[in-house]
């Protein structure tokens, strides 16, 4: 097999694996590392469900090969908070009903975590722009907007 020796930091832990170059980063996270919180929707960069943080920047993990993550840092939904200790954004999503079925939620949370870090006091328009790369078929987005505003408030206090 045509293989690549990958060394990547995911959620703070260093992983070393031999992978096929064609392995997508999304599949690497789910199948090789068992981090199934990263959801795979469209696999061509439209739905945003598979968004992860790549060196802190939101990126589609279905539009990267695992080999491209060599020497980089990846944060997935599993790295944002835990069941016992949700991140402020996760807390706000729960409070404001920013999710229904939850399939798209990991992508929203990773995207918006980076967004709020860069822009702690976003306007309504900026929030809309920030989540324009993520599709949600349940909520109609309004509760997600509310959750982001609530999270910004929480994080600023």
């Amino acid at each position: 097999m045509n293989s690549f020796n990958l060394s990547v930091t995911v959620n703070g832990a260093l992983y070393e694996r031999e992978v096929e170059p064609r392995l997508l980063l999304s599949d690497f996270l789910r199948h090789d590392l068992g981090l199934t919180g990263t959801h795979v929707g469209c696999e061509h960069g439209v739905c945003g469900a598979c968004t992860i943080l790549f060196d802190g920047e939101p990126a589609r993990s279905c539009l990267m090969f695992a080999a491209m993550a060599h020497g980089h840092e990846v944060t997935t939904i599993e790295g944002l908070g835990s069941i016992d200790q949700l991140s402020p954004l996760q807390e706000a999503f729960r409070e404001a009903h920013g999710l229904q079925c939850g399939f798209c939620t990991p992508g929203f949370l990773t995207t918006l975590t980076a967004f709020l870090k860069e822009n702690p006091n976003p306007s309504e328009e900026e929030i809309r722009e920030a989540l324009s790369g993520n599709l949600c078929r349940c909520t109609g987005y309004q509760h997600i907007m509310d959750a982001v505003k609530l999270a910004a408030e929480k994080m600023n206090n």
Partner: protein
Amino acid sequence: MKPPPFEYFAPTTVEEALTHLAEHGYDAKPLAGGQSLIPMMNFRLAQPSVLVDLNNIPELSYIRPDKNGGVLVGATTRHKTVGNDPLIAKQVPLVHDAIPNIGTPQVRTRGTFGGSLSHADPSAELVAISVAMNAQLKARSQKNERLIPAGEFFIGSFTSALEPDELLVEIQLPPLPERSGWSLHEVARRHNDFALVGVAAVVTLDKKGNCKEARMAFLSAGDRPVEAHQAAALLKGQKPTAEVILAAAEKASTDDIDPGSDIHATAEFRRHLANVLTRRALDEAFKRAKEN
């Protein structure tokens, strides 16, 4: 959905990348941000047997001032970096204005300037504005280096003038001459979706306030960026009044472009959009030219 197998190289210098391209020719594809190439591979529309990953080549990622007042951009500089750069905003505002229209926030963190141009998608903003601005594109191969004017770089649908062993290494963005204005307008079904039609305009006034030069390039109006030569000829030497702008928009939408029909829009609707967008773009560009 899995891409077909390929051999993967991750060179750390341009020289090394060019060696791989020279060796593998048509079988190889350079991989920049991957935001177009990887979906095509996921769908198996593209099946390169060799990928040359350019993401580990620091010398390809930079933004620096050019001697002539313009800006030099390394080919793998990411859209987000370009969009946030103060030099870009000041010296080549059309580029700054174009960035928020490209893909989604997640695409802009990965996608690159050179990748977008090399992909030569006729609906890409950077493709059209590089033509409107008359950007020069520097291509390198192992044995040669050449500058290609953007107007000659896009030779067909998703086809650039690059040879298989050539790599686009730098985008040279010229400064706006004095008394110049710029504008980019597009219509898409959804925010951030591919534009149904768009137009980028760069205009320059002479000292009397007449149009000295106008360049308009359309996106999504043909198999490559389409320059509105006839409309530009009509504007030249004229005072840019509402009537003149209207006539230029008519000319551009009727004679300069030949858009197709598809599931997203009919050719007729695209012409209508082109007409309206050209008027808006010229209005804004001439207004800015008067202020500069």
